[in-house]
């Protein structure tokens, strides 16, 4: 019954009506840090805009849920979403004492594609693009959540730009192939990220070929992938190679063993566009290391080629990861460049727009509900309109504007 109510309300909200409805979700804990101060309850405490859905399963999200917030369980935040959420966003979520994401159309659309896709075909590729702060990463999170609930294996890169820049980062000559460069620390960090994200999913996976690290050390056929990860974490020297092995085995076994793999890379354009600022990576000869020379990038680029199946690639392109001179547009082909486009082509570009007025209203109602907006004027209809105008309904701008109210 409650579910039906939410859906009906969602449908009404689509027609942009601004009537207040009875709040359906009443399991909200009023315990945010701001609530601790002696702030009087708002006047419209029992009449609220519907901005929540009790449907916590992203698999069940449809267009009717667009603009509504759903709650991510604490366990998943600490496993699946560990290190995935922007620090500012995570801080906000912690302040609110709950981890809520808004269901938005781009991610619902991509989830729909993933639902209906043919897993015998080579991996399809989806690229989220949009203005800064429009919610590309949050759309990616929603898709990841959808896949995690379907027991997919996550191959997630929180920010690809990290692998092509860094002050005084350790850059070692590749142990696998001369001319390439390893980033031992980054590779180890990613391995642990991978392990945390895919707890309990790697048990039955074993290597299918022999890998020789040194004269004395090797991984025989049938070594569990867990052990490969452990080896990479113990021997940083080989961590990049372990990443390569892991990805290769996933590609090979995805079809045979029948598990599904989601490759989710944030700001994938860093793989193709050299970063030439001062903090670019330099090798021992103090020469710039280009992205394609980094073994991590090289290995991950293989995941983008349509040579394997039973998986999907969902990426975001981000203008902030490009050089200053290449930030004029936010469209995928411009950001990826010719080489990147050829790697991705054919891909499905998915635009992540700014909030619609319904979504912005829902977000503001959520902020008001969490006592994030305490200014009396900000809680009125006129105030909300003003906030929407000032922030241009850009999600990040909206947060910035509201954080001082």
């Amino acid at each position: 019954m409650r579910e039906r109510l939410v859906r009906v309300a969602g449908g009404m909200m689509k027609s942009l009506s601004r009537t207040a409805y009875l709040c359906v979700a009443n399991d909200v804990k009023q315990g945010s840090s701001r609530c601790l101060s002696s702030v009087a309850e708002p006047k419209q405490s029992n009449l609220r805009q519907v901005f929540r859905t009790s449907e916590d399963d992203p698999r069940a999200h449809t267009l009717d849920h667009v603009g509504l917030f759903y709650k991510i369980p604490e366990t998943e935040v600490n496993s699946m979403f560990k290190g995935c959420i922007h620090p500012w966003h995570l801080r906000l979520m912690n302040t609110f004492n709950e981890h809520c994401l808004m269901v938005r159309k781009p991610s619902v659309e991509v989830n729909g594609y993933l639902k209906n896709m043919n897993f015998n075909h080579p991996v399809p590729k989806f690229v989220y693009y949009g203005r800064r702060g429009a919610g590309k990463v949050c759309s990616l999170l929603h898709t990841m959540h959808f896949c995690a609930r379907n027991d997919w294996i996550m191959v997630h890169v929180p920010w690809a730009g990290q692998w092509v820049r860094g002050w005084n980062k350790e850059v070692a000559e590749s142990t696998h192939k001369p001319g390439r460069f390893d980033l031992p620390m980054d590779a180890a960090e990613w391995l642990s990220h991978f392990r945390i994200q895919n707890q309990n999913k790697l048990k039955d996976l074993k290597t299918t070929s022999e890998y020789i690290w040194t004269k004395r050390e090797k991984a025989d056929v049938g070594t569990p992938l867990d052990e490969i990860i452990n080896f990479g974490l113990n021997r940083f020297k080989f961590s990049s190679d372990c990443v390569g092995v892991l990805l290769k085995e996933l590609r090979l076994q995805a079809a045979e063993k029948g598990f599904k793999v989601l490759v989710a890379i944030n700001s994938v354009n860093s793989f193709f566009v050299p970063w030439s600022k001062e903090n670019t990576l330099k090798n021992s000869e103090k020469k710039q290391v280009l992205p394609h020379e980094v073994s991590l990038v090289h290995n991950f680029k293989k995941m983008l080629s349509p040579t394997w199946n039973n998986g999907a690639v969902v990426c975001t392109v981000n203008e902030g990861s490009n050089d200053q001179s290449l930030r004029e547009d936010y469209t995928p082909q411009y950001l990826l460049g010719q080489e990147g486009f050829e790697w991705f082509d054919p891909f499905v570009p998915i635009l992540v727009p700014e909030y619609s007025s319904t979504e912005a209203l829902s977000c503001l109602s959520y902020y008001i509900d969490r006592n994030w907006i305490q200014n009396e004027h900000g809680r009125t209809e006129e105030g909300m309109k003003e906030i929407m105008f000032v922030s241009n309904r850009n999600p990040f701008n909206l947060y910035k504007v509201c954080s001082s109210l």
Partner: protein
Amino acid sequence: MAALSRKRLTDIHKHLINGRTAAFARLFHSTRLNQQNEHSEQQEGEFRVFEIEGLKPVKTERFARRQKKKPPPPRFRSMATDQDWTDVWPTASTFKWSAVPFPVRQGFVENSSENEGVVPAKYANLELMKPPNFLHLTPAHVKKHCDALKKFCTAWPEGLETEEDCRHHFPVESVTSDYVFAAPSLRDDRARVASIKLNLSDLELDYHSRDKFIRLVGDRYNPDTDEVIFESDRCPLKSQNLEYVNFLLTAVYFESWKREGWEDQKELSDMESYFWDINASRKNMVSLLRTIKEADEKSPEADKGLGYLPSDVANEDAICQLEEVQQYKVAVEELFNEGENIETLNNYKAAVTKLLNLKSDAAV
């Protein structure tokens, strides 16, 4: 008695006349003196009263001034609404406020105290007299001029009614200028410049020669209007320059039809625009479709496979001629040649989802 009385009478008369003259003389002195005298006569034997000047109103006599002649009302007040304007303003002349029958304001008002903050009207307005006006070039004037010139004109040639007709029959337009002025010399340097203008579409060119023509002429070609302009001032005479630009056109035209050996070495980066057929995209696409075909044959899934693929995918050209692939090709070429915008990206998205048979319930 009579004699005496006559004598007395004459004396009295005399006396009277003298007294009168004395009185007249006194009258002529001044009115104030007269008054004082009158006063003194009234209060004879007492002190004279001191009159304070300005205490009592003083009657003064004024000479009647001759009335100034009033200027006639401005001419525009008495103008008829259906008058012939060309008679009022026959030739170019400075703005005359009284002859212009419409209200007009001009000038700068610095603040609200100046002229009560209102821009000055036309009366005695210097700002209206400074700029040249076109009151002598109204349609009525032009019509009169044309009527006067008509008898010197010949009939317009038949078949050249529209601009398009003119361009079709006379595709090359040459422009030269003559300069007339009063100076010791009749020569003017600028008169030697000659230029010709033509539309590129009027030339008979194929794809290669058109591309080469555009590359050869450089910025003389305007892609927006499709016009080519050759201009020359290198020769001393106008006729020489005109001949030279004609030569240029001929030379460039025949040169662009030639195909040199080195032109075949054109690489992908030299291409004037994006061609899907020679780019990596086509190769990737064909191999992808072949892989998909293989997968479909191995494990056919109704509704989720690519139904449009032919049973034999060995022929690369046949694959590329498929409708879905052609649509995709157009979308990619648009994406590169037109640039990325919402429309081309949506076209590309639609083409890719159709090509790979991707479906979503939430897709538009």
